[in-house]
């Protein structure tokens, strides 16, 4: 536990000091949101206002994309000499990775707050019920943790930083084939089947229902289950790969 705290401190320092990466992590999500609301938004028809429909999707996209950056951070670390020093210490294999994952979640909390803030300025009108916000925040934290752990495992699997970078692209594109930006019903049948069965859809649907105070239905069960599975599997895979490399 003490070791994890030490590595969390290290990764947070890294986050703050890697100025380029930090600016990208904070402002790219805001840029994506503005693009959807103002550039594409006018052409897409949904029930109700598009800004209300799309902002929860954007939040999920940004949380996923930002968390996937963990793969790059881990791959960078594994190619540096300092990792051999950590691996010859009498500490648990996971401590270094816990540092990366926690710093990733912290970065994404900040960028999500930024996105929500700009969304409110841009006309996003969510519910003000505190319980809904609490549940939404909980779901987002689960999602960020899950994607961060999975990305950490993929970062360990990647042979170099470029390969690790590809992970962020997968995370960035998965939401497009989901209900994040347009309803799944509007897609051709093959894509629609994918959209309805991939994890992003129940997560976005749950978040949207919570933020707009609509009926949540059963979607939340699938959303939480996907995230929990991601955390458990990602973490186990990462610990295994770290010990093997």
């Amino acid at each position: 536990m003490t070791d994890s705290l030490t590595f969390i401190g290290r990764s947070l320092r890294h986050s703050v000091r890697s100025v380029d990466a930090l600016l990208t992590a904070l402002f790219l999500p805001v840029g994506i949101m503005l693009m959807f609301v103002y550039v594409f938004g006018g052409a897409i028809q949904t029930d109700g206002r598009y800004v209300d429909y799309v902002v929860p999707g954007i939040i999920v996209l940004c949380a996923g994309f930002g968390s996937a950056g963990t793969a790059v951070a881990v791959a960078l670390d594994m190619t540096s000499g300092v990792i051999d020093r950590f691996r010859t210490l009498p500490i648990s294999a996971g401590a270094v990775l816990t540092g990366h994952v926690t710093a990733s979640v912290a970065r994404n909390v900040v960028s999500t707050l930024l996105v929500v803030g700009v969304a409110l300025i841009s006309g996003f009108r969510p519910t003000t019920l505190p319980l809904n916000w609490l549940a939404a925040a909980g779901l987002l934290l689960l999602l960020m943790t899950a994607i961060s752990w999975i990305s950490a495992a993929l970062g360990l699997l990647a042979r170099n930083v470029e390969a690790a970078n590809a992970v962020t692209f997968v995370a960035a594109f998965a939401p497009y084939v989901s209900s994040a930006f347009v309803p799944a019903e509007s897609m051709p049948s093959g894509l629609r089947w994918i959209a309805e069965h991939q994890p992003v859809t129940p997560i976005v649907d749950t978040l949207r229902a919570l933020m707009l105070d609509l009926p949540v239905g059963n979607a939340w069960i699938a959303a939480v289950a996907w995230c929990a599975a991601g955390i458990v599997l990602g973490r186990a895979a990462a610990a295994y790969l770290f010990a093997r490399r």
Partner: protein
Amino acid sequence: MCMAYTIEAEDLCKAFGETRVLEGVDLHAERGEVLALLGPNGAGKTTTVRILATLLEPDRGTARVAGHDVVRERRAVRAAISLTAQEAAVDGLLTGAENLRMMARLRRAGDRTRELLAEFGLEHAADRRVETYSGGMRRRLDIAMSLVSRPQVLFLDEPTTGLDPRSRAAVWDAVKHLADDGTTILLTTQYLEEADRLADRIALVAGGRIAAEGTADELKSRVGRETVELFFADAETLEAAAAVLGGRRGESSLHVGVAGAEDVRRVLDELAERGLPATRIALHKPTLDDVFLALT
């Protein structure tokens, strides 16, 4: 109880795919001893160190460090060792002081940051990010990071490769102090001089095996003597001197084997008596090349 060696390795073998890197390495070092693995690139020095430091598992053979098996009792071995690998193992985004404090916390050791910074001449750079350090400063910090907890066994993989003479001397001093305090040190090097200065015993590594082992003097005596290289004013004098002294003819000089300073005086006196004065001389010690050509 037979608790003889701090480092003992038997028949270590390791292959990476088709490439066989170690073909049966046997090693031992007593407590407080400095053992140098001397050999060219690719001889298997780093692989040996990585196995002993628990970073690699051997395909065959066993090794114990500080009394614990490096495969089955990794954690106990890790508690007793520090590794300074070939690539400087420092965190570039942290400052020098932060690197040292981080290691102290991870090692559950007292904070000796100031002391170590002073010892390695890094006080002025304590609060600068390590990515701004020179190669020599990184190396010194790297070794300081290995010393936060006073390890029982210290592995130094080519600790002075690429260092300027001043940094090299600082590293050598640190190694000597540690050995005096009872730390067992295994260092790898490509430099005969370094092994000579630091090591109690030297193991020559070639082709994944230990080709020869002994003190520096033992090894050098097996290689041959020092030579003095003599230059003359003209080719005739060189010719005449060669007739008197024997030795090996170079292009414009004569190499003669000598045993110490007195022997050099004897050679020069003999030349002077015969009116064949040398214009310039140079002394040559046996080089790593000589050692390898002779013993492998």
